[in-house]
């Protein structure tokens, strides 16, 4: 054994072999499996290879998948998000629970016209009207040299 280990280049070959056989098996579902082989990431379905990609590509795809998944989750939770956003709007809090303009529009409608009005009834948009303060200036009567303009 010692003789084998002393042979030239054996350590490098062992390291290479270890790298090739080291694999992480991450079961995603019963049918879908992700595993690694060396610097590549493999995606298998029922044991059959679907795709093999470099680890850099796998990271980029994972980020894109996570973003898409959050959007899909938002649509799945749309009713709850609309209800929560309507409460926030009704309370007058400047907090957005979603960036989706359609959900925001629905939440606005719910806040304005939905049943929530019965439970949070007192919040309303104040009128922005404002009335100026004019001045009435009364001239002096003819011949009234002692009179003053009526600035009361």
């Amino acid at each position, binding site marked *: 054994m010692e003789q084998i280990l002393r042979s030239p280049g054996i350590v490098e070959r062992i390291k290479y072999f270890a790298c090739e056989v080291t694999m992480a098996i991450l079961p995603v579902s019963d049918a879908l499996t992700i595993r690694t082989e060396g610097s590549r990431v493999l995606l298998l379905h029922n044991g059959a290879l679907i795709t093999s990609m470099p680890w850099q590509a796998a990271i980029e795809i994972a980020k894109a998948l996570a973003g898409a998944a959050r959007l899909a989750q938002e649509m799945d939770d749309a009713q709850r998000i609309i209800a929560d956003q309507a409460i926030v709007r009704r309370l007058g809090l400047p907090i957005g629970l979603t960036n989706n303009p359609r959900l925001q529009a629905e939440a606005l409608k719910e806040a304005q016209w939905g049943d929530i009005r019965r439970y949070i009834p007192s919040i309303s948009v104040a*009128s*922005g*009207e*404002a*009335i*100026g*303060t*004019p*001045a*009435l*200036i*009364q*001239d*002096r*009567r*003819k011949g*009234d040299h002692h*009179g003053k303009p*009526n*600035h*009361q």
Partner: protein
Amino acid sequence: MSNSLFDGGREAFLGGDADWDANTIKLVCVDHADDTPNVTTDDNLDDILAAARVATSGAFASKTKTAGVADAADVVLTTVTGDQFESIVIYKDTGTESTSLLLVFIDTATGLPCTPNGANITVAWDSGANKIFRL
């Protein structure tokens, strides 16, 4: 009370029944000893008793409505006589009292209440941001 729009005036603006620069707009001086305008329930000129109307102006000139701010040239009431008045009411004049919409109630102004002395009275509108009123 304080300066305010009449409820009917608000409805008229929102419903397209009052057009600030296209309609004939006037003001009337009101003696509260005879009738105090109610911005909630009064909607047309006939809701203010004739006896309470001390003076009425001519049609406002140079009206503007830029950015929702109503403005006009200062109004001169000529040779005003009669009782002391406590407020002025701006209304849309249709020529018929029962359809002349009350728009703005002003009881907070420099020179109010005012006791006419027979001379002219100039109503100088606010030169600040709100002018006559702002929606």
